[in-house]
């Protein structure tokens, strides 16, 4: 099973994990990762997330296919939100299911690295005092993390 959703609404991580495993007796491991909107200094009003409709879904689906080619995944779900997201709210969900934990952990990590660096989403920070609205700069650490997987340039 491969589920990809790009949506403004929040999601229920536990329900998504249950949907992935429902009726299956061969899954021994489910890894679920939730990325939250973090406010480091108490100044953030919200992150505004822009995306490329159509390509965002396609790029995430390709990443899941790539993960499935590398590890014996039984299922994977990826949900990414867009629009205004307040500190503490959920932004992204990755759930991977496999017979054993190694594949589930590795695939979840690869999918998150992909989502951070190659899926067409852009974050802008809106501050409480209204002083500035800056596009979030890409982090070198995210690129280095993604480079581990030697992802194709597409």
């Amino acid at each position, binding site marked *: 099973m491969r589920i990809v959703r790009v949506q403004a609404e929040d999601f229920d991580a536990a329900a998504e994990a249950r949907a992935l495993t429902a009726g299956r007796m061969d899954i021994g491991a489910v890894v679920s990762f939730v990325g939250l909107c973090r406010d480091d200094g108490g100044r953030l009003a919200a992150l505004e997330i822009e995306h490329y409709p159509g390509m965002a879904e396609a790029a995430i689906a390709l990443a899941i296919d790539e993960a499935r080619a590398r590890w014996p995944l039984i299922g994977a779900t990826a949900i990414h939100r867009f629009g205004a997201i307040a500190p503490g709210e959920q932004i992204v969900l990755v759930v991977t299911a496999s017979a054993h934990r190694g594949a589930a952990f590795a695939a979840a990590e690869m999918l998150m690295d992909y989502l951070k660096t*190659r899926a067409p989403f852009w974050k802008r920070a809106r501050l409480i005092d209204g002083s500035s609205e800056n596009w979030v700069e890409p982090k070198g650490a995210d690129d280095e993390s993604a480079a581990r997987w030697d992802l194709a340039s597409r």
Partner: protein
Amino acid sequence: MKAVYFAWVRERIGKAEEEVDPPASVATVADLIGWLRARGEGYAYAFEKATVIRAALDRSHVKHDAKIAGAREVAFFPPMTGG
């Protein structure tokens, strides 16, 4: 072809999308960036550091040396910051 712009590329150009009709001499994504850059101040600002600009043809990531012939939609955007 349709050109679409995202994030600060969109803001600097001042529009989200437009139809573009480059001459036949514009063969690659890099050529197209050069051609767009000459269209005005906003374009010049958006593409001032061409190497940081990411591109997609028909919604697949491509490098700047990719040929644009046959593509219906080209997209330009900054490095992605999802997740």
